[in-house]
């Protein structure tokens, strides 16, 4: 009985709401998600991308990063280390830039995992890898890794908690 007391504009409104609800069901539109942040190798965005470009870099797909950012990365590398010639991997500024600018983490399904241990180069990133020392050495250390010795290690060589040998590997929270 109460229904009949509802005014006709309200009925109309109710009808529209029901119709649009039906329409949405029929469309079956999937829910989409859009990139907000991305990363692969540690510290790449933070070291090589200017403040103004950070959000843009974080939403640029890896396959187009080289075209968009290679010249900026090279300028940044040479600003950080004007004396850059090559590094421990024998990479020129252009070659090193090209490796860095496409921010993907290379991982091996066959080799042991190491960011860089002298033998394994970029076969993944293990929890205990001292990735900062690797990157500082490659940026500042010159062809032998021995140049600018005050800048090639932060002398923090490990985590403050021990990792586990078994799943989930990371340490319990503080």
């Amino acid at each position, binding site marked *: 009985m109460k229904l009949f007391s509802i005014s006709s504009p309200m009925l109309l409104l109710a009808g529209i709401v029901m119709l649009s609800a039906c329409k949405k069901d029929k469309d079956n539109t999937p829910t989409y998600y859009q990139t*907000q942040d991305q*990363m692969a190798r540690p510290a790449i965005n933070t070291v090589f991308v200017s403040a103004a470009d950070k959000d843009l870099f974080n939403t640029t797909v*890896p396959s187009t990063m080289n075209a968009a950012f290679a010249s900026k990365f090279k300028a940044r590398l040479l600003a950080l280390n004007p004396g850059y010639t090559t590094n421990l991997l024998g990479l020129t500024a252009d070659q090193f830039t090209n490796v860095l600018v496409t921010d993907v983490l290379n991982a091996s399904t066959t080799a042991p995992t190491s960011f860089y241990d002298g033998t394994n180069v970029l076969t993944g990133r293990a929890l205990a890898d001292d990735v900062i020392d690797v990157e500082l050495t490659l940026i500042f250390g010159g062809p032998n890794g021995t140049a600018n010795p005050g800048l090639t290690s932060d002398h923090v060589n490990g985590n403050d908690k021990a990792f586990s040998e078994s799943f989930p590997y990371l340490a319990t929270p503080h």
Partner: protein
Amino acid sequence: MKKKKMLLASLAIAGITVGGLVFAADHIDSPTVTGQSTDITDLYVFRAQDPNNLVFVANTQGLMAPSATGAAMFDANTLIEFNIDNNNDNVEDLVIQGIYNNGKMKIYGPVKPSETGGRSKIEGAATAEVAVTPYGSDVIIGTGGGLKVFAGPRDDPFFFDLNQFKKIIGGMATSFNNPGTDAFAGTNVLSLVVEIPKSMLNASNGKLNVWLETKKKI
């Protein structure tokens, strides 16, 4: 000596040029996402205890004090997505997706995404799920589809003397200290850990390129 001075001068200039430069793995690197559930701190990919498996770790919401960790939560509107290129063209061939819903982390994939790039949808049916391990509780492990899954607060595994680096960049110091001071000691992150058989990843010549994305519901 002269060379060193030049280097330091240019470091100082570089520091000024980029403004409040923060150098961390990826912690709070992006103005848009800093302080949000989408803020990535680190990606790890490594050989598992079982050498037939690889482990993928996505850490988010970094620099959490222990006092803030109990209240930290994953976000139901944030898709955490491992992108895996297995033919070396830097375009994702497989994705492993994680999304939080009602106390659980659901995992989708590894699966070929229906579209590549910045926009994604959840692909197919869930392959595994796990209840989020509460702060201070024993680890809860979920399994399904050959995967092993963990989601919850962990110690931030990243270590770096960030503050001394900022001083060097700012021209206020000329070198690191020995020993250095880990700026990430004593802080926590929210971790998603997925262990997966290598055979499911179809690597060509044993090589993968991996990147981590957080995607917000639109």
